[in-house]
């Protein structure tokens, strides 16, 4: 069963095309990661799916209905990307306010305890630390016992420990049968949580596949060196020459370096760096001139 769907959706802001003919589907029980660099269109896609904006063209569906219809939103929980809780309201009041919108909300104490906020119910939101605000914002997505939770960059700005606490809460929700759509620009986060990954870049879906398949693609490393001539080496996805340096993109940097040394060719200034998501995808999609997977 499909809980959320975008069909050939485009969204334009003035002259900027933020989303270009995007197709995405989230089925019940999935934990889908939406991965892409900043500005790729992740937040725009989410804002369309939760009914905040209208697509310029194409169709968006939430639980079989229009996301702009309040009834369609009864089964979802959303967390805002920016932590913008009303500063003067107390933590408990904010939870009660959101609860009032749902027929069978999670009791306040239970929800706050689940996110390690039990002690803070009487504190004003403006006085919380960044991590506490973030946790409260994520907790709010779970108040209404949703079937689908949409988390836009849930752990941005959190320290490692707080991030792992949140991951646990998300995993527990999924293990109970909940569906999650989570956006992130950290590969690590998506790897830790998601089963399926949709990669978005420049407003398009670049890939939609299992975590393993995506990791093979974005796990590409850049091996840079200075050399006159290189023999052809196995496992090189792409070769670039810039200012006398040779850059080799490969999924297995260790093997490439071994092969390089074994080939006996003279080289210096060897450097191995991870590529950014953006780099990996743009490089690969540019060479293939087609999305990695449909």
């Amino acid at each position, binding site marked *: 069963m499909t809980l959320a769907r975008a069909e050939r959706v485009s969204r334009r802001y003035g002259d900027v095309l933020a989303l270009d003919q995007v197709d995405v589907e989230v089925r019940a029980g999935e934990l889908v990661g939406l991965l892409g660099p900043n500005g790729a269109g992740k937040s725009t896609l989410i*804002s369309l799916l*939760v009914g905040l904006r209208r697509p310029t063209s194409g169709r968006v569906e939430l639980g079989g209905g229009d996301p702009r219809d*309040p009834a369609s939103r009864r089964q979802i929980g959303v967390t*805002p990307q920016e932590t*913008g809780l009303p500063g*003067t*309201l107390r933590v408990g009041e904010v939870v009660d306010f959101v609860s*009032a*919108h749902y027929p069978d909300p999670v009791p306040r104490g239970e929800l706050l305890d689940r996110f390690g906020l039990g002690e803070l119910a009487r504190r*004003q939101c403006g006085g919380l630390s960044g991590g506490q605000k973030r946790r409260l914002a994520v907790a709010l997505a779970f108040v209404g016992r949703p079937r689908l939770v949409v988390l836009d960059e849930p752990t941005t700005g959190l320290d490692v420990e707080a991030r792992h606490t949140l991951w646990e809460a998300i995993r527990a929700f999924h293990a109970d049968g909940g569906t999650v759509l989570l956006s992130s620009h950290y590969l690590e986060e998506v790897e830790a949580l998601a089963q399926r990954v949709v990669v978005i870049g420049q407003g398009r879906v670049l890939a939609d596949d299992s975590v393993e398949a995506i990791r093979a693609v974005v796990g590409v490393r850049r091996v840079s060196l200075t050399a006159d001539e290189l023999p052809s080496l196995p496992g090189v996805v792409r070769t670039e020459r810039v200012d006398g340096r040779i850059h080799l993109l490969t999924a297995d940097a260790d093997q490439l370096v071994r092969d390089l040394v074994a080939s006996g060719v003279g080289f210096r200034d060897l450097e191995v760096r991870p590529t950014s998501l953006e780099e990996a995808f743009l490089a690969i999609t540019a060479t293939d001139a087609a999305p990695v997977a449909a």
Partner: protein
Amino acid sequence: MQLALVHARYQLLETARVPVAIFGSAFFPAAAMLFFVVPFAGRDPVGATFATGAMVTFSVMSANIFQYGVGVAEDRDQPWNPYTRTLPAGPAPRFAGRILAGLAITYLSLIPVVVIAATLTRARIEPAAFLLALATVAVISVPFTLMGLAIGYALPSKAAIVVAQLVFFPLAFGGGLLSAPGQAPGFIEAIAPYLPTRGAVELMWAAVGDYSVSPLSLVMLGVWVVVLATLAGWAYRRDEGRRFS
């Protein structure tokens, strides 16, 4: 309805935690009472009553234009606002809640004017007329609420503050709120019926004393309500939170 009350409660809670916001809308009309009405019309029961009615109207106008115009525009800047739009409620409870809270704050901001009128002037009013005036406050809040909402949803907050300040004084002066009935300078008497403040203050005068409302002012007030409601509805629908291009 339940949700509208929830929204109203949280609106009021937020306002109450920064009480200076309420003083703001109560200050100007109260000061105008002290500086203009008390020394000049305070001794004449009829004049003082009408002048108080005008100041009440002034207060209703400024409270509504500012709290909705500036309040809505500022809320739209906050990330909390788009979040609330993902909750399973349409715009109706939020609108209704905001208006209930707005009305409550409007009544609060009138207290100083009424207290000053009762203690420092000879203004007087029958209990029945007082109740009628209370109801009139709610009625004449309508056009200014709509005006505030139109400003708040159409403009970014910095522009909304300026526009709210730009419109409220000409409306007060042009509508004849700063003069006794029929005593305003000629050009104001000429333009006043076409401004929403005039119809509003005439309703208030009719509630508190012996005054008959002019049909032109009343019809124009109706026209204003329709126009402002259309404008507010349009601005609300095109709003998708703050946009950058």
